[in-house]
């Protein structure tokens, strides 16, 4: 499933899906119609880059460099996250 996301796709959060800090509960959340999704710190960093301007490849290489991580590992994390959000109509490619 995650392999289906192309390197040159430009992931973004559609209108009506908002990444925001929930200060009252000291966490980050993704807000969508009738949904509150808790977002872990790694996913926050990924989603902040999903604004439609960057390709998936750029997002992966940027994160791998910044966090000194294996690109293959980062790629798998990013694709898994995006695939689950796309299925819920909370991200677009």
């Amino acid at each position: 499933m995650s392999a289906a996301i192309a390197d040159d796709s430009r992931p973004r959060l559609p209108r009506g899906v908002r990444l925001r800090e929930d200060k009252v509960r000291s966490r980050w959340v993704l807000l969508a119609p009738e949904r509150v999704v808790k977002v872990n710190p790694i996913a926050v960093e990924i989603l902040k880059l999903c604004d439609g301007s960057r390709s998936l490849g750029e997002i992966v290489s940027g994160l791998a460099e910044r966090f000194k991580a294996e690109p293959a590992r980062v790629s798998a994390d990013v694709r898994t996250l995006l695939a689950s959000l796309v299925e819920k109509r909370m991200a677009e490619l």
Partner: protein
Amino acid sequence: MTEAPPPPEGLLAELTHRCPLSCPYCSNPVELDRASAEMNAAEWKRIFSEAAELGVLHLHLSGGEPCSRRDLAELVEHAARVGLYTNLITSGIGLTRDLFDKLVAGGLDHVQLSIQGVDAAMADWIGGYKGGYAKKREVAAWVTNEGLPLTVNAVIHRGNVEDAPRMVDLAVELGARRVEIAHTQYYGWALRNRANLMPTREQTDRAYAAVEARREHYRGTVVIDHVAPDYHAKFPKACMNGWGRQTMNVSPSGKVLPCHSAEIIPGLEFWSARDKPLAEIWERSPAFQAFRGFDWMQEPCRSCERKAIDFGGCRCQAMALLGDAAACDPICTKSPHHALVPEIAARDSVGPVDGFAPRRYAKAPELA
């Protein structure tokens, strides 16, 4: 209950009980608040600010028909400014293009549109409003063309139960990202009209399976939220995800309720957002405290392994069917009174649908 409860995630603001439609299953109380009792914009805005500070994330602007409020755009703009995710729950009737544009400019996040049938004949009959279906289709197009997420909400009952799966298809055709197929929940007006709304067990099972089958078919296209027909269920719903755990309702006149139906429970003391800060009401009002946690439970709930899953079901249902709001929701097959439920469902699901008590204001006393 001395410990402060975690803050609520959602607030349902019933801005008004006025509505151009008269759906026979309306979830508003049978005693509707009149326009003269409604809070003004300044009061609502203060409540929204307090809600955001308290930790509310989602604000559901509902009614009645929220578009019946002339100050709706001002309210949305304020809610968005204080950081709330704003969801407009509307029939579409009364929403003009000009108002829609103002709501979008003010930061509206999501529109939930009710649809009463898959064609005009059914939809306009149930809603009691000629031309309603065509108007809804127009509103759906405004929402999707703007790029805002659209939810289609359809309530299922004996009159349209055979169309339940086609409601999902209609939602997809209208470009909805999410569809809510809600089998009628019997409170308020729906309880009054139960004998004309209840589908047979066979109709319910067929409709339920057909909607579930759409899930796989439309994966990635539309999210289906399926509200189960509880009279035909084995376990009760986790009503409100537990009393006073996640959400609060504010009535048009400012009463803060644990759920929209809670006023049917006698003896509960509701506090008003006109008099007290929302945080204090959430944490300390007697109505919220009444069924929080597990101490209020009777058997079989008290020792039940599912008590943290469904919280004993629905307090209003226990009240409506058994006259005891602290009893196990009789939908549960573990309730000693469960036999009542299939009996009612069987009795109320026979015969033709021969008309409803339409939702409307009681006649003013001087005209009675």
